[in-house]
Every structure is written in C-alpha cells, then in structure tokens.
C-alpha cells in the first residue's frame, strides 16, 4: 500500500524479490532479495554475469516463470501487486503495459507468420481496431524503429530478414501498445557488434516514442554506459551495487563492480595495460554458504566476509548503495589497484621490454 504521491512517478517497484527453483540437488536460489524502483521514463541497467539472476528477475515481473518457481516478495506495477496475480490479470498487463524484448531475435519471432502480422497481432491483442488499421500502424512502427522499406518488409517472414532488422521488429512489437515499462533482456547480445549500436538507437527511439521506463538487462557495460540512467549490479542473485551511471562507473564501491570495470577493454587505455580478469567463477546457487558470495574471488576479502553477508547500504550520496563491508575504504580505488592479472598465461605473454609509459595510475577516468 503506497500513497498516490509516491506511486505517481514510480511505475515499477520491486521489493525483496526472491525466486527459487526446487531441483534434485536442492533449492536453487536464483534471486535472493532484489529491490529496485523504476520511475517513469527512466532507464535502469541491470548488469551481472550469467546466472546472477538478471533474467529471472525480469521473467518474474512478466509472470513467465515456470510454475515450479517459488516467488516471494513484492512486484508492484503502478501500485498493483503482480506476485500471485492470476493469469488473466497478467494477460491484461503483458504487452499492453509491460512489454518484453528477448535476447535472440532469431527465435523470438514466429517463423511461420510475416513480421507485419506479428506486429499487428500485438496491436490487435489489446486494442479494438480493424485489421487494416493494425497493419497500417505496424508499417508505421516498423518505420519508426528504422526497418528500411517498411512498406515492403511488413510482408516479409522473419527468415528473410537479418538479425538486426529482426530485433527492430521485436522492438516494434514491444512498443506497439505504448507500454509503461519495457524490459529488454540482453537485446544486443545475439547481434553482431556492427548492428548493436543501430539496435540500441532503435531501442532508445522506442523508449522515447512510448515514454516508457526501461529495464535494460545486459552484461555489456558499454551498452549500459551509453543508455542507462541508473545501474544495478547483480551477483549471485543479489544486487551488490546500485546507483547513477556516474557513481557506478567513476566511484564504484564494491570489489565486484570494480572487477567488472577492469575487465572491459578501453580505447584510451595504454597498450601495455592488460585486461583484468576476475579469477574464479560465480558460486553455485544451491546451498550458498553464509557470508558474502563474492568472498572467494575478492582481493580484499577478510574473515568477516566469510561470516556475514553485507547488506546493501548507502555509501556517499543517497541513491548510491553498495553491499560491501569495506565500501568506505574503496573510495577512489581503481580496478588496477585491486585486481592484478596473475593468471599463468597472462604472465607468459607479458612484454617486459615495452616502455611503461602508461602506468595504471596515469589513466584517465572511465568513459
């Protein structure tokens, strides 16, 4: 229950969401307490590696998780609780108020229908218009997202189109009913780097045309930097850092975030500067031990980290929060101060003869 004043601009409120799946090995805790608030027209980037619970969170919002999933917590869309909502209620929201863009445009379009039919279908599902009107609108939408020659392409089948154009079609479908929230689940991951930027443009256009808020799920930090207003970093099913884009990129306060940033190739980095891997792999989500799940991979981990899991607490400014016992100590720390490329192959490939003109300390800030 929220008052109208606070829900007025918050379209989507996720509070302490947990999702677990019973398996033969035990309960897989895919999401372990995610909370975020999405305001109108805001773009929230969710980053994290595979298995960190990014997609499961969004599938829970759409109500698309299998029945075996156990969901607790709260997801409210404009004050309406979605957890436990019946299928018929969800169907009214899906596509019309909350739309989703899937990762792979090769598989998220039905191969036996024309793309125009599929866009029109989305329109007809929630609007009382004639088929001719829906088709005309479909052409408009395809044109908006930059499908070349939309008037002809509307009668194409998905297999006749390139991946980039298909993803634009998917975006057109998502924006067909002017939703309030668009959830884009790794919209550029399956695409060539060359078309990623175009698709991101189309996504931005869709977001602006519809005035929707957007959840942009990705593991590409570059995508988030260019698009998002705020960033949520997830690790092992939990948010470990959330804040404005500038905070996360320039003032990260969680070792995992620092590690992610250090592993991104940068044009302005000196040639001798190596990419920094985060050694190890994410923990199994079955029977997670107590303590911070990042402990085994963390360069600054201490005994305390193995005992208690740090809560998400405000660091400096209000919206910037991080889950690390030592977040106060991380002010001004750069990835290179924390992580070193100590893996065996990194050492053998080292070029000691290269002039060390660009030592890490001399580096500029992240883009």
């Amino acid at each position: 229950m929220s008052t109208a004043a606070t829900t007025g601009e918050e379209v989507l409120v996720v509070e302490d969401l947990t999702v677990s799946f019973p398996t033969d090995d035990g309960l897989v805790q895919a999401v372990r307490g995610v909370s975020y608030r999405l305001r109108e027209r805001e773009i929230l980037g969710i980053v994290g590696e595979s298995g960190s619970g990014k997609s499961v969170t969004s599938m829970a919002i759409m109500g698309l998780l299998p029945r075996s999933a156990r969901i607790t917590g709260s997801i409210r869309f404009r004050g309406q609780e979605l957890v436990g909502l019946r299928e018929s209620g969800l169907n009214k929201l899906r596509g019309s108020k909350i739309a989703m863009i899937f990762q792979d445009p090769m598989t998220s379009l039905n191969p036996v229908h024309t793309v125009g039919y599929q866009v029109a279908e989305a329109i007809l599902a929630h609007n009382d218009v004639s088929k001719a009107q829906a088709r005309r609108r479909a052409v408009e939408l395809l044109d908006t997202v930059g499908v070349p020659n939309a008037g002809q392409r509307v009668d194409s089948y998905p297999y006749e189109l390139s991946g980039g154009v298909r993803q634009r079609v998917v975006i057109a479908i998502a924006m067909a009913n002017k939703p309030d929230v668009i959830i884009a689940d790794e919209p550029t991951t399956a695409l060539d780097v060359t078309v990623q930027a175009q698709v991101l443009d189309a996504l931005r256009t869709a977001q602006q045309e519809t005035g929707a808020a957007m959840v942009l799920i990705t593991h590409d930090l570059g995508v988030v930097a260019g698009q998002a207003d705020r960033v949520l970093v997830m690790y092992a099913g939990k948010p470990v850092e959330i804040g404005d884009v500038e905070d996360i990129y320039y003032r990260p306060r969680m070792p995992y975030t620092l590690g992610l940033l250090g592993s991104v190739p940068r044009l302005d980095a000196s040639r001798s500067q190596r990419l920094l891997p985060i050694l190890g792999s994410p923990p199994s989500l079955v029977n997670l031990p107590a303590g911070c799940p990042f402990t085994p991979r963390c360069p600054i981990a201490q005994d305390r980290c193995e005992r208690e899991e740090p809560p998400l607490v405000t660091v400096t400014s209000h919206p910037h929060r991080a889950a690390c016992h030592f977040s106060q100590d991380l002010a001004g720390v750069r990835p290179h101060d924390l992580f070193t490329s100590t893996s065996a192959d990194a050492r053998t490939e080292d070029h000691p003869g290269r002039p060390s003109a660009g030592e890490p300390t001399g580096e500029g800030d992240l883009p």
Partner: protein
Amino acid sequence: MPSTQPEEDHGPRAVRVTPTRGVSARPAGQDREFTVEARSQGRLILRRFLRHKLAVASLVVFVAVVLFAFAGATLWHYSYDQLTPDISAPPSLRHPFGTDSTGIDLMAMVMRGTQRSLEIALFVALAATCVGTVYGAIAGYYRGVSDTLMMRFVDLVLTFPTIAVAAILGAQVGTSAGSWFFIGIILAALTWPIVARVVRGSVLSLREKEFIEAARALGARDRRIIFGHLVPNVMGPVIVSVTILVAAAILSETGLSFIGFGVRPPDTSLGLLVSQAQTAVSTRPWLFYFPGAFIILIVLSINFIGDGLRDAFDPTQTRVRS
C-alpha cells in the same frame, strides 16, 4: 534508364552501385532503383513445389485420376450398374478396361470405385487431421496430468486393430446408401491418434521456443498461442501425416471392402472390385489389374505430393533441390 544518381553526398556506395537489374524499363524513383522485386510467400511456395519434379508429376497424375473418376463418369456412355450384352469381354475400344461376368463395363466401375475411395480417403484425412491436430496441440501445450490422460487414451485407441474394429462396426451399419460415409467416420475415429501423436511431439518442443514465450509476454491467451502460433508451426509434419493418412485410408477401405465389410454392392469401390476379381486373376486378369493399378496410382501420387508440399511449405527450409 533515368540517371538518378545524386550529385551530392551519398557516399561512394551510391555512386558505385549501378543498377544491375537495369533491364527493367520501369522509370524507378530514387529509392526504387536498388530494390529487388519482392516475391510473395505464395509464389515462393509454388516455386519450391514446382522444383520438386516427382511431386509435380504426381500432382498431374492425381488430378488426372480425379478428373477421370468424377468428370469421366458423367461423360462415359456406360454406368457402373448398367448391364451390357458383352459378357467377360477383354479390353477393347468399346470397353477399354473390359467387362465383368455380368457384362458391366469395368471402366465405369473403376470410375465409380475411385470416386468412393477418394471420398472416403479425403474425409478420413480431413476429419482425423482436424481432431488429431487440436487434440495433440492441447495435450502437448498443457503437458502434465491432462497430457498424460489424453495420451493414454490415444495409446488405447491405437491398440485397436483398425481392420477388425472397422469390420465389426461396419457390419452394424449395414448396406445403406450412405455407408461409405460411415466407413469414413469409423476409419477417422481409428486413425486420428496418429496425427495427435505427431502434433503433440512437435508442440512439446515448439512450446519451449522463445517466440511462444514472447507471445505470452505480449498477453496472448492459451487459445491464441495454440491456434495462432503452435498449430501453424506444425503444419509441416501434419501435411506429411495427412498424405500418409490418405494413403492409409485408401488401403484400409480397400482392405475392408475386400473382406466384405466396406462398401457393398450395388455400390462399388476399388477394394470391392479387386476382391470380386480375385477368382478371375488368371482367366480375366483385366478385372484385377485395372482397379489394382488405380489403387497404386492414387496412393503413390498422394505420397509424393505430400513430400513436395512438406518441402514447399516449410519456410525454414533453405536446402535447394536441384
């Protein structure tokens, strides 16, 4: 050709590309210049089907058989129940297929028999396909308990020996004029599980595809997903099973009529003709070979047509047949 290349900044690409399809005399606009003529899906399917030589030949044969049976029967100057003075005559110009021992023109009987066989087969195919597709799609989509119950029922029906059950039920129906229709219903009631199984299998894998999830994310209801997304996607396997069904139905009907439980005299069918001729194979072989040849012709041509249709309808098929 109109030179529509702009002088200004269209970059090297616009200047470099000369219209290779320039032979067309259409005074194209600037952006029409490079567009490839869009081919409609129908034409693509037709092209792919026409490339399948055996299927095209079979279609020609099948159409010829249908015309022969339905149009031919109205044109031919003998009818299947008309006695002629020529008794047991071998094929001649007067009776191209010969006559039987009561003097009935065999060609007229084959025409009539083909009509009956085709009617039964097409009815069976249509009814069994509709029922089987819907049933299989529902079972595959909902999975779980409903799927288990529905498919165990299918297994049960599949254990019925078709010919025996059809023979018993057919015997109840009797010799009324519309008996071919009842035979059709009986055969359809026994063969739809084949389609249901095929469809369920396809739906089980299709329902996990991302586009189904995407449809659900768009607010599509179950009915819409089943009939709008799943069923169109199983058309390939369904078309194949339809052709198998048609062929199987013709053979079943033939078998039933052969053992005396199918179409009854005075009406006739290909199976009945073959059975009536079994005593005459050595003395009057034409009575046996003409209806038998028609059975083979129909079954084979339908199978090949199905093959061609499957290749043509499958939009994901990229293999080019030479």
